[in-house]
């Protein structure tokens, strides 16, 4: 985990007066799965576009892959591009071509041919769970199927760095689960993955480290665990009580049998109450998640914009 696969240094990009990316710096280690989290318009897609050279930064720099003298990690270089796979947020597949033809075409652009191409196409079709629909035109696919194909195309040339820009939008829970499992497999194989999303639970489940950004700025960056303990705050416990022995002090607010309180270590609190003879009818513990981290950091909910 010592060689960074992606390094962004003091990156800025403006569109007119709007600072879409503002002095952003972070690096993704080799083999790491890194989450880039932020609400709509935070600058995630812009960051990806800068990373792959679709946009030119106003300031700062981007380095992809191993930095060698002949290969400065600039995404303008074909050798650098060859090692990067991208699933853009906007679907980018040919609707008039079949799933298989899409994969074959992009595979050929990356120099694949013959048996190798065949093997990779089959692998990708399997990855996207589209093997049975391989010969169907992508235009007739459902939104989720297109999304899966869009992601599979990014993998056709076995990149060592994978950039996924909100790859699960519109994908049903079952397929989403399949995608998560596939990503975990890729991670185990040592692929470096940069994953943008505004679904906190995805980042929490998949990513070792997460960067939270808003208005183009980096707000926090750490492991999920550290972020939660640092910014997550207390858990919220709500419960309906059956009986309360007299003399036992109940924390928080109470109305009739229902109680509600916050605590940094909810289970310890519940155990303490239980040992004092409090009988619980229902118990609900809401642990802090990245959602609450974001709330804490910005004072806004993630998906209210």
């Amino acid at each position: 985990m010592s060689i960074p696969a992606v390094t962004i240094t003091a990156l800025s990009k403006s569109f007119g007066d709007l600072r879409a990316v503002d002095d952003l710096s972070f690096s993704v280690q080799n083999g790491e799965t890194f989450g880039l989290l932020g609400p709509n318009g935070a600058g995630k897609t812009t960051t990806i576009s800068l990373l792959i050279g679709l946009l030119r930064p106003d300031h700062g720099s981007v380095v992809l892959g191993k930095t060698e003298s002949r290969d400065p990690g600039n995404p303008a270089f074909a050798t650098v591009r060859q090692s990067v796979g991208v699933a853009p947020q906007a679907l980018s597949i040919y609707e008039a071509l079949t799933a298989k033809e899409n994969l074959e075409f992009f595979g050929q652009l990356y120099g694949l041919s013959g048996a190798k191409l065949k093997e990779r196409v089959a692998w990708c079709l399997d990855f996207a769970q589209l093997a049975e629909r391989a010969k169907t035109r992508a235009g007739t696919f459902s939104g989720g199927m297109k999304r899966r194909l869009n992601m599979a195309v990014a993998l056709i040339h076995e990149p060592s760095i994978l950039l996924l820009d909100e790859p699960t939008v519109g994908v049903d829970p079952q397929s989403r689960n399949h995608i998560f499992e596939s990503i975990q497999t890729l991670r185990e194989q040592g692929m470096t993955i940069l994953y943008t999303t505004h679904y906190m639970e995805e980042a929490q489940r998949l990513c070792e480290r997460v960067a939270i950004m808003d208005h183009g700025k980096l707000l926090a960056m750490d492991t999920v665990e550290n972020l939660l303990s640092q910014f997550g705050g207390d858990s919220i416990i709500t419960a309906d009580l059956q009986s309360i022995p007299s003399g036992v002090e109940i924390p928080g607010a109470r109305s009739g049998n229902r109680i509600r309180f916050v605590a940094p270590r909810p289970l310890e609190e519940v155990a303490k109450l239980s040992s004092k003879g409090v009988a619980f009818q229902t118990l609900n513990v809401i642990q802090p998640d990245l959602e609450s981290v974001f709330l804490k950091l910005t004072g806004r909910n993630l998906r209210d914009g």
Partner: protein
Amino acid sequence: MNPILVMALKDLRLLFRDKLGAFFIIGFPILMGLFFGLVMGSPTSSVSQGKMKIAVVDLDQSETSSKWVSFMAKHESIELEELDFDTARESVRKGGRVAMLVLKKGFGETAGVFWREPPTIQVGVDPSRAMEAAMLQGMVMEGIGQLAGQRMMDSSSMNDMIARSRADLVADETISAGNRLLLNTFFASLEKMQNSIGALQADSDESSAGSLGAGGFEFANIESIDVSRKIDPKSQAAQLPRLKSRWDISFPQAMMWGVLGCVAGFAVSIARERTQGTMTRLQIAPITRSQVLLGKALACFLSVVLVVVFMVGLGVFLGMRPGNYLTLAFAALCVAICFTGIMMIMANLGKTEESVNGAGWAINMVMAMVGGAMIPVMFMPQFMQGLSYLSPIKWGILAIEGAVWRDFDFAEMMLPCGILLATGVIGVVVGTTILTKE
């Protein structure tokens, strides 16, 4: 595989997957070609089906001469009209008639009589219609032959003629006694034969009499009249007679619609790469921007060649007979390069498929109308013909026609082909430069 080729093959596949696009490229041109070809009718059939327009100037005004005229008029491939000399000549010069025939005074006396000096028939033929002239010459001879045959059959007139000839013979003192004897014997036997034929009342048909003419005997001296063309070589009258089949005009024209279909189709496809997001993938793939664009250009080039090859194939199947396939291949190449260039420029007309398609077809329609893809340039009013020089379509049609029926030589091909090539190269360079700078 070379990425340019990979791109091009993908784009060709996409083009033919698009039903409407494919219709504009193949279906529409077929309909246009067939429709206008059928409307135009066949130039060769007009020769064989009695529509060869001939003017006759009968200066003799004898019974025989009018008989001959009626023989000629009966011919099913001739449309005959008696005119005075000047009117007749003018009509041939202007291309209104294929030829004029002049029967000089005294025609009746010698026509169809073997032993006299054959009559002189003056023929003035439109120089651009040599093939028809040859046919006409045959028919003229046949007419005289029929005249001769009829004279022989018609005993009374023949006997009368023999009697008159004998009288001439007697009066002519320049004929030696020996010869006179010989001729007298000849006339006597001729009279005898004539009578027996009359007795048999031969129900001979005219064709057997006509075959006399085909026997190699010279029935008439053909003398030519100068009717060198006064007409503008650019007029329809000058051009139409050179057509070899009814498809000669309609197919080159129709091809251009297919070519324009390719142009619009690929210009739109560049915009479509943007709108459907695939341009992003192409840009981040390990290929250069110019490779992407050259792939588009190659696909457009190939599809234009395909359209021309297909339409020529269909035309040949229907009866079109291109004069020179090598020239035709060169013309097709130039057309393909020209319109590839135009496509690359057109791709810059808008950011969305709709805007490129709208602007593209608007330009296409103007180029097509002005360039003669709807109404052939030769049928256009004068000022429109002048405007047509500005349309690449005109040069495309001219290049193809030059190879198909205009029988252009290399030097003549250089004008349309040079313009097409220059337009194409400029288009590719300018279009690619703008597109890569974005």
